[in-house]
């Protein structure tokens, strides 16, 4: 039974990976920008252009290129960046920790605070607290990430405002430097995710609080704290885990794009965006495959975690 399940799962994962790579390969490589004109020098002749295109492999038919890339991928070789010549795996190894360190505090805080506020608001549904929390989260939801970033940078990082933090850049050589650089992005991330998280967790908790078993627990004298931290939280775990896990690939790749662009942080989002805009295909394909793989892993993890969290779904 378990074997069959695993076989099905891995078949699905594989098909998903194939789908994602095919989609992105078609979009970003076949139709995407070609780097010829980024790489070609001044006063180039048509022959030189053809030569460079051949060197970049642009003259090959689609399936050849896709197949070739798949074979390389399968052998674990991500290739070299067309743009800088750096090996893609080195590039990713350098960029991923930066992004992780960049988004982790905001991500954790956003989820924890959101969960706390959401639970509290759901428990006091209809009260002033609830309305305040909801009002704040709707306000947060209505702020564009871009506006938040611009405003925060203006307020905290420039001579026009408090000028407490560096306007850009990234250092992780000491805890102090790290905190100095991560604070404003974290604040921005918090502001933009807290509203969503609070609302989501509140909705989940509110639904849970309406269930009969909560009423039963109350009828046997449960206190709010024991209820919220006990059965309610545990029953909310499935949506919470799912949400947290599923947002990881997005937060890692695209959630950080704007932050990294605006704060000049050499993370994965920036790397990806640069790769897209310059048509640096080896990097692009690696990132997308990585994202897809992350998604597949996350899906599996989410499934297992949910099965653990909820006995009803456990494997037979």
């Amino acid at each position, binding site marked *: 039974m378990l074997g069959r399940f695993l076989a099905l799962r891995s078949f699905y994962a594989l098909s998903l990976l194939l789908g994602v790579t095919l989609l992105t390969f078609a979009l970003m490589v076949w139709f995407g920008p070609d780097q*010829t004109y980024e790489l070609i020098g*001044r006063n180039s002749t048509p022959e030189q252009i053809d030569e460079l295109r051949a060197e970049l492999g642009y003259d090959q038919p689609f399936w050849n290129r896709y197949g070739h890339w798949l074979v390389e991928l399968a052998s674990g070789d991500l290739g070299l960046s067309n743009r800088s010549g750096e090996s893609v795996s080195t590039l990713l190894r350098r960029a991923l920790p930066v992004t992780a360190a960049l988004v982790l505090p905001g991500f954790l805080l956003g989820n924890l605070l959101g969960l706390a506020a959401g639970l509290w608001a759901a428990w006091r549904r209809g009260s002033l607290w609830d309305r305040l929390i909801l009002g704040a989260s709707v306000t947060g939801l209505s702020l564009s990430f871009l506006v938040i970033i611009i405003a925060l940078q203006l307020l905290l990082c420039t001579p026009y405002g408090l000028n407490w933090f560096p306007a850009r850049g990234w250092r992780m050589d000491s805890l102090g430097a790290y905190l100095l650089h991560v604070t404003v992005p974290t604040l921005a991330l918090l502001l933009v995710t807290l509203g969503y998280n609070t609302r989501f967790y509140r909705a989940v908790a509110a639904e849970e609080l309406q269930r009969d078993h909560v009423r039963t627990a109350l009828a046997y004298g449960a206190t709010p704290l024991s209820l919220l931290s006990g059965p309610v939280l545990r029953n909310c775990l499935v949506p919470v885990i799912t949400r947290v896990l599923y947002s990881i690939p997005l937060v890692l790749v695209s959630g950080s794009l704007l932050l990294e662009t605006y704060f*000049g942080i050499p993370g994965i989002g920036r*790397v990806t965006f640069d790769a897209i805009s310059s048509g640096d295909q080896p990097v692009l394909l690696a990132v997308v495959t990585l994202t897809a793989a992350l998604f597949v892993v996350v899906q599996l993890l989410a499934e297992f975690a949910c099965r653990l969290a909820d006995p009803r779904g456990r494997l037979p």
Partner: protein
Amino acid sequence: MKSDSTLRLALAVLLLSLQTACKDAADSAADLTEPKRYVHSLDGVPASLDPAQAGTRYAKFLVLNLYDTLYRYRYLARPYELAPNLAAAMPELSKDGLTLTIRLKRGVHFIDDPAFADGKGREVTAQDVIYSLQRHFDPATRSQGAWLWQGRIEGLDAWKDQGSNYEQPVSGLRALDRHTLEIRLTQPYPQFVHTLAQGFAGVVPREAVTAYGLELGRRAVGSGPFRLQSIDSARARLVRNERFRQETFDLALEGFDPERDQGLGLTALDGRSSPFIDELEVEFIPEDAARWSSFYSGLTQFTKVPVAQFGQVLESTAPPTLKPELQERFQLQAAPELGFVYTSFNMADPEIGYSEDPQRNARNRALRCAIVKGFDWTQRNQRFFGGIGEVFPGVIPPRLPEYDPEQDRGSTEADPAAARALLAAADWDAGNLPVLEYGFPASVTERQLFEQFRGFMEAIGYPRAKIQPLSYASFGDYYRAYSQGQVMLITSAWTMDYPDAENTVQLFYGPHRAPGANAASFDDPQFNTAFSAAATLPPSPQRTELYRAANQRVIDECAAITGLVRRLVLLWDRQVILQPDWAFVGGYAMRFVDLRDPAGQR
């Protein structure tokens, strides 16, 4: 409540750590004394550090500090003067101007790198220079600089056609001995020595290319004044190359001008041996706001001031002077860029360029001239270049000896009435005017430039709907589109590779038509004759005449709306001893940077 206390704890931790962070930052600022570190900022990111790909000024900036070139520009001399760098002296030129003999300095070593057999950097030899030039002609290098030497060096192009086999000698590139190099040209090329001062001409050891291949883009194995410590898309860290040759800095020889360079502290450098700093950190900050605030709060010591900021920084624009409250901390230089911005017409497009039908051809010329007449350079200068740019007619910008101050400036002065009259005379009206497609890479400023242009055209009676934007997602896309002749109005900027008129006039030379640098595909027999005659001549009054004649053809045929030389406002910290230059010595200047007071008070 549980979460409540958690929250409080988290807040406390955060505040506490912030405090330490601020203290740390203060500490690190105080630590600036040793080692001596200078933090530069660039407004773009270099893609690759391989000299063969040093196409952008950002890449060039780093390459010139990491690799040696045979020649360089003197630090302070204006107009620019070439000086020997890796070469021991200026080249010996044969009488026919075709053979150059160059002697290399002895005892110059590459930095230590695992690419070398024993990990020790070996001596730089003439063979290395030959190899470095050859590899531009190897397709595997993906060189962006090959055009500098294309068709110029005897046998080099043939070498490429025969498969770029390094074992096969090139007749025009010979090592006479370990330290002597002979280069034979196919025809006189007066600008040739300039090409050897380019980033492209950085000398690369073959071992490094063999070991790293394309990855050389993220490593640097050179013999320049600095070694690369790390690089990513946000910053590069360079440290002093301890083995860099000891040469005495001669202030007078470098072109010191006591009046101009007064107060920069340059005199303190005289007689010392460069590089003067231990660490060179280069921050890549394309975002204007961030670059400015980083500079203002002291995180970087140099910045190019964004145009939008001019009002906040400059007390007056003619001449540009710094606001008094900034003068204490900063030094200002408002340097004209070598190069210019212009908009050319796609002459290959029968709607606006050359037409088979002579009548239409004439009407198209009138249309182009009307557009040129309608273009308000003054407003463009005011709004987008801070009002300090220099508008000039044609393609020979000021400060080149060939520039003619007496030239008629009519082509740069807006006259909507005259433009309307031109249109009417050529039978153009709102109904039969062609749709203009104006291309630009998507960015706010480019879009605003387009909107301004559309405004100018509306003022001469062009219907708004007939001026269409063609926005491209990236510069590469835009480049491809206009190189393939898909854009009618091509707005671009030309940055000169070397300070010689040949480099700008060639922009309209017929054989250079798209996809070459002549994006307008201007193909005028008179122009072509004049240019090809001038190209092989050394600077002389005769050459000047030819270039001026060619320039006039571009203006007469209204092939382009031109031009404006941007003036960059550069600021640097008063603690830094520096005479910056954006155009050519930008990279070379770093070896002469010093900090004013080694004890350090900041």
